[in-house]
């Protein structure tokens, strides 16, 4: 007596018969009847009419009968919601049964009944079961929460089941923990808000890691998968987590292994790639991956798809394992194709000989798809490993000699690619290719062959004949071939115009008049017009140097690859598509790899010392842009841009030259943008509402040469910068008794190479008692000699009386040039490059208006007027930090950090420069400007 008998009763009136049996008093009969009902149900028959009768059997002590009835209920409750309510009482009662098995069973089944009305009754029993003394019941209840969430998410949240579930994460029993994790991750995934409902903390992670060692293999998968979503806080945590996960790699269950690989691959990103730990981890990752390849073909397939990703991300892991990817002839085809793909990815100079001989072997196999792919792989090998190209070509030629049609065609397609990668290297084989012209019947192969003929038309004697033969059936060709043929004939004509005119006429008329393919027609017309108007230009266009094809055109895009690495072991990794691309109703939470340690430490440093990195993504690392998101520093636009916005083009030029030329071209603004830079400071002054004259700080004139020393000539002066030009403003007062004339001025060699740019123009003769102003433009191209102090300038003034000598100090700010705005990136890099001992700190005391709320902005604009440019601004703990750069006339860059505390009249200034001795001068300049 076996169960198969239940399937055989397919008489008429069967339902009626079952009904009477179900209502039989004898337990045995009842059970038999329920079994029959279930049998009908499993083969898809509708037995829902029996619902009330089956439910009646529910109140029984017999566990098997109870299970069967529960099975039935799960299937049909949805179609009979009103009847299902009848069962609720029994459920509630069963939830308090002394036997934990029955309690668990009841809770489980109730969760599976997807009827809204029932869920209301479910809450109380579920709450009890979550706190049940028996772990078996608790773990079943945990899963039930996930089921309930699927039916009615708001109820789960309202009733506080989520919190209870979170509590289960710290349950003493590892199985309960595992199920709680599974339930929580399912809830997280389906949560409508898209944000995880439960944040992982280091404490929970620790608990999970402990549970990991003790729970079942399936639980381990759930725990590992949820660990993969956690981002460790720092390198140390990542490393210790990795250490605790590594033993999972030796698990017999492939799913556990692959999930562990996922977590490790992800966390490895955080560790410095040259560390010993990563090296040893890389070694440990290879064996488990290889082991996966000796399990069932289905496992192999999934593993291979994942290995494909891993190899692209970290080729080192499997670089010595080429042989395990060699194809066995009885592998299923889907495994063969994947192995081939990975072989190519692993091909390198070291192993290429081996790979090629394998590929050649595969090219003689029976399966057409596989053979094609193998031939194609040989071509990819040639393109990837340059040293092997020669051997690949000869292998391909051997294959062409086999005359197996599809092999030849495929070989020609890849040879075309090889030609594109290594032009003018392997033309000797063209004659062999041409021999096989007649056998080509696939469009791609034909098109490739035609391309080769066109490209090397000058070396193929009968190229015109060959192409002509193709032309005969032009109308029947695939459009790919038609396009290729058109181009090839035009190439031929340009190379051998004398005898191919007829041919080109023919093809052009075929393409333009007889074809209804718009692409073909357009291309035909373009060629025609080119050829008829300017054959030289046509030559340049058609025969232009072509870019070489790259070896890795088939690689995944790095960002996609990184995302997929986060999805190792999932369906996404099998399809090589992000989950958002194929999973329905998935809110787009994109997973991303954690930032690498280097980028990470940069981030830490930046929060302490400087703002710049917060807004400057480190370009050198792929994931750099994550960094800026993590820190969330204020975005700092180029400082003047925002206020200057009304003056569109003026603002633009701060944003960079590229943009403003664009703007100049597109906008109708008459002002040529290129004229702006020189006056931008003045313009900005206007914008800030300050009178332009006072914008730049000008130190009051000081007396440089008192009359008693100057034989009656009193000279006072100052340095000033106007429109990007340094001037020395001088006042000559004649305090002597006779007029003075014949003024001339000369500078001694000085630190900044300052010399007069033009002769001194002073009122001459200068009558006694009269003062005259003179403005002397200065150049900074003179001979340089370091002075002490740095800003000292020794001047000699000559007049008809005598030659007078004096020394004056050049205020540093006059030497700040207009193009002192550093790029943010450069600023960051430079700041880091300059050693710390070059940093000098000053305090600027008693700065005016410091109580002003927008004092910082005032500082920014004021400094800007003096060619000190603010690169970034941020607020740290109530302090405003300004990062500024300036450049001196002699090209020395100075990087400054200003710390401004609201209400505190003192400002802290830190300077960094490669030549620290300018610091004092710069500080003086700041001091003057801010006090002025």
């Amino acid at each position, binding site marked *: 007596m076996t169960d198969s008998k239940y399937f055989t009763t397919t008489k008429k009136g069967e339902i009626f018969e079952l009904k009477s049996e179900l209502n039989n008093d004898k337990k045995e009969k009842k059970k038999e009847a329920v079994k029959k009902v279930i049998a009908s149900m499993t083969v898809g028959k509708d037995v829902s009419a029996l619902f009330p009768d089956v439910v009646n059997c529910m109140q029984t002590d017999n566990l098997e009968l109870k299970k069967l009835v529960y099975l039935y209920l799960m299937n049909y409750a949805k179609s009979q919601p009103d009847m299902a309510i009848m069962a609720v009482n029994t459920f509630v009662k069963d939830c308090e049964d002394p036997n934990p098995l029955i309690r668990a069973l009841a809770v489980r089944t109730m969760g599976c009944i997807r009827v809204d009305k029932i869920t209301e009754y479910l809450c109380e029993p579920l709450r009890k079961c979550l706190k049940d003394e028996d772990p078996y019941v608790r773990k079943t209840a945990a899963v039930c929460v996930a089921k309930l969430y699927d039916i009615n998410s708001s109820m789960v949240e309202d009733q506080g089941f989520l919190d209870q579930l979170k509590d289960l994460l710290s349950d003493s029993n590892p199985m309960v923990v595992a199920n709680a994790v599974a339930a929580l991750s399912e809830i997280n995934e389906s949560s409508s808000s898209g944000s995880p409902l439960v944040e992982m903390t280091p404490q929970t992670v620790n608990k999970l890691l402990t549970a990991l060692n003790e729970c079942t293999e399936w639980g381990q998968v759930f725990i590992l998968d949820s660990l993969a979503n956690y981002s460790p806080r720092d390198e140390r945590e990542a490393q210790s987590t990795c250490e605790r996960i590594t033993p999972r790699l030796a698990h017999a269950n492939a799913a556990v292994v692959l999930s562990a690989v996922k977590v490790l691959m992800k966390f490895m990103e955080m560790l410095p790639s040259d560390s010993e730990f990563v090296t040893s981890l890389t070694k440990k990752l290879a064996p488990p991956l290889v082991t996966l390849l000796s399990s069932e073909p289905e496992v192999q397939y999934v593993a291979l798809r994942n290995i494909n990703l891993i190899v692209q991300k970290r080729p080192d892991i499997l670089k010595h394992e*080429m042989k395990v990817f060699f194809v066995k002839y009885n592998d299923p085809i889907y495994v063969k194709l994947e192995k081939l793909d990975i072989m190519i990815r692993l091909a390198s100079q070291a192993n290429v000989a081996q790979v090629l001989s394998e590929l050649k072997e595969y090219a003689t196999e029976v399966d057409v798809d596989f053979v094609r792919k193998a031939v194609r792989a040989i071509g990819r090998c040639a393109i990837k490993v340059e040293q092997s190209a020669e051997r690949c070509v000869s292998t391909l030629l051997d294959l062409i000699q086999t005359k197996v049609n599809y092999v030849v065609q495929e070989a020609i397609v890849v040879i075309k690619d090889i030609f594109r990668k290594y032009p003018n290297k392997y033309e000797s084989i063209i004659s062999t290719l041409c021999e096989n012209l007649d056998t080509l019947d696939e469009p791609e192969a034909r098109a490739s062959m035609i391309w080769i003929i066109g490209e090397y038309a000058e070396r193929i004697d009968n190229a015109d004949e060959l192409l002509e033969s193709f032309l005969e059936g032009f109308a029947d060709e695939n459009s790919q071939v038609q396009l290729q043929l058109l181009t090839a004939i035009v190439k031929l004509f340009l190379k051998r115009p004398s005898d191919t005119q007829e041919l080109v006429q023919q093809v052009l008329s075929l393409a333009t008049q007889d074809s209804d393919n718009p692409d073909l027609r357009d291309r035909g017309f373009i060629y025609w017009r080119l050829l008829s108007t300017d054959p030289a230009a046509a030559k340049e266009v058609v025969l232009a140097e072509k870019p070489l094809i790259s070896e890795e055109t088939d690689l995944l895009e790095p960002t996609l690859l990184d995302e997929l690495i986060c999805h190792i072991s999932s369906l996404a990794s099998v399809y090589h598509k992000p989950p958002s691309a194929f999973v329905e109703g998935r809110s787009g939470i994109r997973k991303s790899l954690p930032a690498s340690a280097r980028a990470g430490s940069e981030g830490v440093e930046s929060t302490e010392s400087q703002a710049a990195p917060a807004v400057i993504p480190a370009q050198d690392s792929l994931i750099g842009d994550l960094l800026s998101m993590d820190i969330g520093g204020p975005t700092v636009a180029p400082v003047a841009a925002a206020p200057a916005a009304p003056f569109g083009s003026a603002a633009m030029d701060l944003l960079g030259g590229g943009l403003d030329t664009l703007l100049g071209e597109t906008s109708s603004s008459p002002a040529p943008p290129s004229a702006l830079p020189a006056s931008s400071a003045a313009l900005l002054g206007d914008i800030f509402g300050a009178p332009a004259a006072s914008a730049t700080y000008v130190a009051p004139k000081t007396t440089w040469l008192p009359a008693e020393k100057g034989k009656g000539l009193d000279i006072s002066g100052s340095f000033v910068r106007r429109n990007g030009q340094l001037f020395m403003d001088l006042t000559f007062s004649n305090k002597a008794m006779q007029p003075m004339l014949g003024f001339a001025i000369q500078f001694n060699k000085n630190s900044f190479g300052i010399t007069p740019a033009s002769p001194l123009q002073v009122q001459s003769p200068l009558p006694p008692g009269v003062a005259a102003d003179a403005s002397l433009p200065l150049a900074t191209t003179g001979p340089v000699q370091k002075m002490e102090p740095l800003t000292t300038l020794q001047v000699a003034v000559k007049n008809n009386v005598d030659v007078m000598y004096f020394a004056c100090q050049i205020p540093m700010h006059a030497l700040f040039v207009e193009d002192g705005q550093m790029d943010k990136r450069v600023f960051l890099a430079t700041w880091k490059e300059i050693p710390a001992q070059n940093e000098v700190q000053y305090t600027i005391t008693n700065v005016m208006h410091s109580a002003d709320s927008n004092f910082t902005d005032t500082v920014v604009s004021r400094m800007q007027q003096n060619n000190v440019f603010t690169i970034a601004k941020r607020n740290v703990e109530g302090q405003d930090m300004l990062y500024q750069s300036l450049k001196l006339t002699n090209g020395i860059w100075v990087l400054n950090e200003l710390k401004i505390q609201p209400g505190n009249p003192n400002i802290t200034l830190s300077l960094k420069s490669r030549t620290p001795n300018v610091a004092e001068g710069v500080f003086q300049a700041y001091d003057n400007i801010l006090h002025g």
Partner: protein
Amino acid sequence: MEKHWKSVISRSVCDYFFDHQRKASSPEDIPPVIATPHHYLISVYRSSMFFVAVCTTEVAPLFVVEFLHRVVDTFEDYFSECTESIIKEHYVVVYELLDEMLDNGFPLATESNILKELIKPPNILRTIANTVTGKSNVSSTLPSGQLSNIPWRRTGVKYTNNEAYFDMIEEVDAIIDKSGSTVCAEIQGYIDCCIKLSGMPDLSLSFVNPRLFDDVSFHPCVRFKRWESERVLSFIPPDGNFRLMSYHIGSQSIVAIPVYVRHSLCLRESGSGGRLDITLGPKQTLGRTIENVVLEIPMPKSVLNCGLVTNQGKYTFDPVSKLLVWEVGRIDVTKLPNIRGTISLQSGSPPVEANPSINVKFTINQLAVSGLKVNRLDMYGEKYKPFKGVKYITKAGKFQVRM
């Protein structure tokens, strides 16, 4: 037969699977993961049956694949084989098992000893007893092992004869090329145990040369820390048959090839004939005999028949599947097995494009080809003295010789 754990999915999803099945040339070639517009079909192919899981959301396919294999394992364990008729015959048990193994997409209990406590495997005696007493094969108590820290072992096991047997099985996977040189060779090793010990024995197994292992995967019962530090397998074994460990000795180390095949196949002789000549011989066997040797050669399609003579064993050729099988038996060193003769080809057929491979099967008893040796087995925790036994077998795995 279908079973739903979440919402009910219509049977029609299977049509996608059947489409793929029609397209594939052989059942093995159906891709294991198939995407349909709303669902993902993940299938495994075991004992000529497909087991298809339908998933609605992003899951780990390996998880599903592993689970499906586990389901089949369990069926095989329960019913000793897994065929369509067997499953039909025991569908109630199957249903109960599935119910016990998976809940809402989460695997529940997959360890066979736990399942066996929940649902008793059917046997004739019990079926009769059940019909007489009206009892069922569903246990009404919670299995003890389910929640313990060692879920693989139940408590209160008792045997009169306490035995522990270890089978060290090594399979040689190799590809040998035309000239007889090894393209790649690796060893896939397993330690299968049959342990019938009372109580809670704690075993430790040590090897003479544990350095051979660099790639291992263990049954969950093995204490990994101990292995890492001392290279000793320390574990509380499950009851009965189980695979303790599998290992892989890969391409890094040199693998001994125990057998060589000298062959010549010529299919392009004048007329419509070809010649075949194969000789087998032992290579590195450490003096053991190679037994149960079988050669399988899938011949090209154009081969009509073979007229071969063997000096040992029998050969068969199936003209439909074109499979030539030569059952050699044991290899006698003094008289090497040979098969030779003519092959008749379809006249006028194009030249044979592909060279076949020879699939070689063999076993060598009392030899672990890697040189692995068990040092000793110790038992702690129980007082009795168990009977211990270790057996070594080397087999051909995927051992292929290209012609």
